């Protein structure tokens, strides 16, 4: 036996090698459940990715639709009107002739005009809206041809845009006041008449309309439609909104000449809506029906003249004005923001256990201070879209509750105390005087982990302009590169209140997040703007790998900054 005991290995090997123990039945049930859970987790994880992808696609689709609706579509709508050009010969020596308001307008004669604000002054400034006179012969021919063409094409070419126009009246206030009621009544009658006839095509294709066209010797008639203009507005200007029912074919005669009255481009816009819808230069023919749908005196809106114009007006603006709204502006924006950081934690199936798991981390850890600073470059890629990129420095700090940590060999084989947190682990070697053995423990009083990243965002922003304000919703992606991941740990009195900082292992060098923001900017002047942007940044990939917990770092930021137009 003594020999047996000396060969203790053999004793145990002989006894236990062939020893079998029955497996408790519960183990197999648990195994089944666990396998189901694994499978469910796999599908859930798969679903997460699909959801993220779907969300991204949805945002892209919405962006595309928004672009089509708000950027591309308006230009297309008015193309039929805008592209119609008239020969210069129809203008008298390059000068326009204004016609006073003198008689009730028919549907085809009603156009808008803008004349000098001086009372009684018949002289017309450049840019005023006038009706050009044409010869009666040409008029007759063209009218007949227009009749034929319109009958054939009818509604096929109908374009019915709504255009807002500014009018300034060339009559003294007293005279206008006296005439106001008459004009209002007249306009209402015209609108009613137009509505009754539905469209210009219907009007022109009818025998009545033809006879009108034929019998009319000239298209010079120009009538100002007014409804209700305040006393002050007479000198300051007023706004009129009109519906133009227009058929392109009406503008051409059989011999190729245009038979229309020429209306000079309207220069004065008074509201963002008007600016948005405006398509200069606008020419209205005698066969263009103008339906007055609204007329409101809005002197206060005149103040917005210079700020409400959109890019379509740039051709007519002075160089100084054009500079204010460059087509492809490049601007720099410096910002700083306090962040509310929050994380999504996921257990790693292989590594999470009783030492560290999601539940434990959520109990022990709390994110506290977080901030971002950055410099962004904006580049306009269209009338309404801005591409944004730059550099963003972000920092997130997490406080960790006191706990006991244990010693184990690190990667180099030296035994150190391992400090685990949701971001990763770090090995600490407090100056205790003795080298810790595997399994030795020490109490940690307080600790924190700080992660800092430099992110390179790329986002697409839609710009909606409202006076001096810019509203910029946008979506984007950002690649964040780890610059530092450290844990600061304070040891208890047992080792003399030491504090030790160590790098966190297990952090990935970069992670990706998606962002969704709504920016607002106020233009101080042509060069500087101040802005505010609430921004949500959701991590698409984890910040760490091969750790018991995978951490997804998210932020809600309030970026405040100043923008410089270059």
């Amino acid at each position, binding site marked *: *036996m003594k020999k047996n005991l000396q060969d203790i290995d053999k004793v145990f090997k002989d006894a236990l090698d062939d020893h079998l123990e029955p497996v408790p039945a519960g183990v197999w049930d648990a195994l089944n459940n666990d396998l189901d859970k694994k499978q469910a987790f796999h599908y859930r994880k798969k679903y997460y990715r699909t959801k993220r992808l779907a969300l991204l696609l949805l945002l892209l689709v919405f962006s595309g639709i928004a672009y089509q609706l708000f950027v591309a579509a308006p230009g297309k709508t008015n193309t039929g009107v805008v592209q119609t050009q008239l020969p210069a010969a129809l203008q008298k020596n390059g000068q326009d002739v204004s016609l006073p308001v003198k008689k009730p307008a028919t549907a085809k004669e009603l156009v808008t005009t803008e004349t000098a604000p001086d009372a009684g002054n018949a002289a017309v400034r450049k840019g005023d809206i006038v009706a050009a006179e044409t010869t009666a012969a040409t008029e007759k021919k063209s009218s007949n041809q227009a009749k034929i063409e319109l009958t054939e094409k009818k509604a096929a070419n109908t374009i019915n845009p709504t255009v807002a126009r500014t009018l300034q009246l060339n009559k003294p206030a007293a005279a206008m006041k006296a005439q106001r009621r008459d004009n209002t009544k007249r306009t209402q009658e015209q609108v009613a008449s137009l509505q009754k006839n539905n469209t210009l095509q219907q009007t022109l294709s009818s025998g009545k309309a033809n006879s009108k066209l034929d019998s009319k010797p000239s298209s010079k008639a120009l009538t100002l439609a007014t409804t209700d203009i305040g006393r002050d507005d007479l000198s300051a200007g007023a706004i009129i909104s009109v519906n133009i029912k227009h058929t392109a074919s009406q503008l051409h005669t059989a011999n190729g000449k245009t038979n229309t009255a020429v209306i000079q481009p309207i220069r004065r816009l008074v509201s963002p809506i008007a600016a948005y819808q405006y398509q200069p230069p606008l020419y209205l023919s005698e066969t263009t029906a103008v339906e007055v749908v609204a007329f409101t005196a809005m002197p206060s809106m005149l103040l917005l003249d210079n700020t409400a114009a959109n890019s379509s007006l740039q051709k007519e603006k002075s160089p100084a004005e054009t500079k204010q709204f460059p087509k492809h502006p490049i601007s720099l924006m410096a910002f700083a923001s306090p962040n509310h950081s929050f994380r999504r934690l996921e257990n790693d199936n292989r590594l999470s256990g009783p030492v560290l798991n999601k539940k434990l981390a959520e109990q022990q850890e709390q994110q506290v201070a977080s901030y971002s600073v950055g410099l962004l470059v904006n580049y306009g890629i269209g009338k309404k879209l801005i591409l944004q990129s730059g550099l963003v420095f972000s920092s997130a700090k997490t406080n960790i509750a006191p706990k006991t940590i244990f010693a184990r060999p690190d990667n180099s084989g030296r035994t150190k105390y391992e400090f685990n947190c949701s971001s990763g682990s770090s090995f600490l070697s407090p100056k205790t005087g003795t080298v810790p053995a595997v*399994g030795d423990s020490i109490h940690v009083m307080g600790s924190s982990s700080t992660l800092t990243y430099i992110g390179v965002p790329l986002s697409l922003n839609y710009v909606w302009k409202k006076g001096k304000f810019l509203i910029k919703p946008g979506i984007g992606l950002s690649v964040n590169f780890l610059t530092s991941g450290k844990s600061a740990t304070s040891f208890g009195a047992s080792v003399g209140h030491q504090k030790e900082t160590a790098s966190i292992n297990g952090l990935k060098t970069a992670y990706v997040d998606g962002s969704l923001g709504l920016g607002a900017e106020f233009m101080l002047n042509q060069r500087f703007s101040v802005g505010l942007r609430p921004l949500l940044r959701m991590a698409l990939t984890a910040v760490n790998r091969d750790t018991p917990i995978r951490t997804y770092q998210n932020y809600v930021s309030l970026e405040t900054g100043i923008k410089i137009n270059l």
Partner: protein
Amino acid sequence: MYSVCLRFSRSRHEAEEILQEGFIKVFVSLHKYRDEGSFEGWVRKIMINTALQRYRSRSALHAVVSLELTQHHPSSDKEEILANLSAKELLRMVQELPPVYRMVFNLYVFEGYQHKEIASLLNISEGTSKSNLHDARRWLKEKITRETSVDNLKKLYL
């Protein structure tokens, strides 16, 4: 496999957890199995790795070993005493070994690993592995001696 897990664990409950975790790995990694060795050997290796992984992740919780608790007891008829020790009792003794000793002893005695391999698996030096094996053997001998002495005394006086 359950016996293997029992040897590497402190308790039956822990052995069940290792077995469960090991079998999940087997199922998940089944496609990775190549017919280069016996299937049993492949599964056994997974079980051992699972136990070692568990040991490594929980190394912080392992108690520091103290051999001073064990004392030499006079032995009587050792052959008879050894015959009285069942496999279950020997298994229990292995389970009662301090974790690091248990790992080294199991890997060396039952699995046939060399000290160099053990050192690599447990993140310790080769010398530490040898020392731990020596200590484990001594611990087990003393445990057997003590327990058989108690049993004998019981038999003698009861």
